[in-house]
């Protein structure tokens, strides 16, 4: 059993009530599956579902890829810095 820990920010963090969320899985998870699972659990975040990005080891993930669970994973809702 692997635990995939995910850092949360901004509205995602407020909604989850904590700065991280995790998913346990027997199987190897892909980045897209992690995104899907998060938004299935918090299905009222409809507006952000399609436009939240995923970062792996502090880099945006460009393609759907397999995770080992040892990475630093973060969900990046649309940014509003500046």
């Amino acid at each position: 059993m692997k635990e995939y820990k995910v850092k949360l920010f901004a509205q995602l963090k407020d909604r989850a009530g904590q700065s991280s969320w995790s998913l346990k899985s027997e199987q190897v998870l892909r980045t897209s599956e992690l995104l899907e699972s998060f938004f299935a659990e918090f299905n009222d975040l409809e507006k952000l579902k399609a436009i939240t990005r995923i970062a792996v080891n502090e880099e945006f993930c460009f393609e759907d890829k397999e995770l080992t669970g040892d990475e630093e994973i973060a969900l990046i809702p649309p940014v509003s810095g500046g």
Partner: protein
Amino acid sequence: MNKNYFIDITRASIDIEELNKSAEDPECGAVLSFSGTVRNHNFGHKVTKLSYEAYAPMAKKEIEKIIVEIFAMDPGIKKIQAVHRFGEMPVGESSIYLTVSSKHRPEGFLALRTLIDRIKQDVPIWKKEFYEDGESEWLHPDEGCCHKHLCLKSYDMS
């Protein structure tokens, strides 16, 4: 190593004078700066303060990538500084301060414009506005996502 750029993601208020001083360079005929300040209204709401949250280590890396790309655009660009503040800040204060020092002004203006636009698009920092009526809201622009990266929309479309 004497780096030709400086990046900081900080809780402290931004020392603009210091940044202006270090932006000066005898090789550069143009020293440009941009200050993003906390505005007192947004879409008809009166804003009393702002709070920024940063994924600081990644934000720093993303800004670094942008700066490296900008240096590659034109050899006339000699020095770049980017400081973004996070935490709470009142109306009127700078949340971001950028400087570009270049040989001539055309490449400097282009570099500064590119820098702020790319930061707003790709750097993991988020703004929360607090309104006069006690409400508050995270800003997550709908168009803020760059579809080059993995998100569920591009995944669904593939």
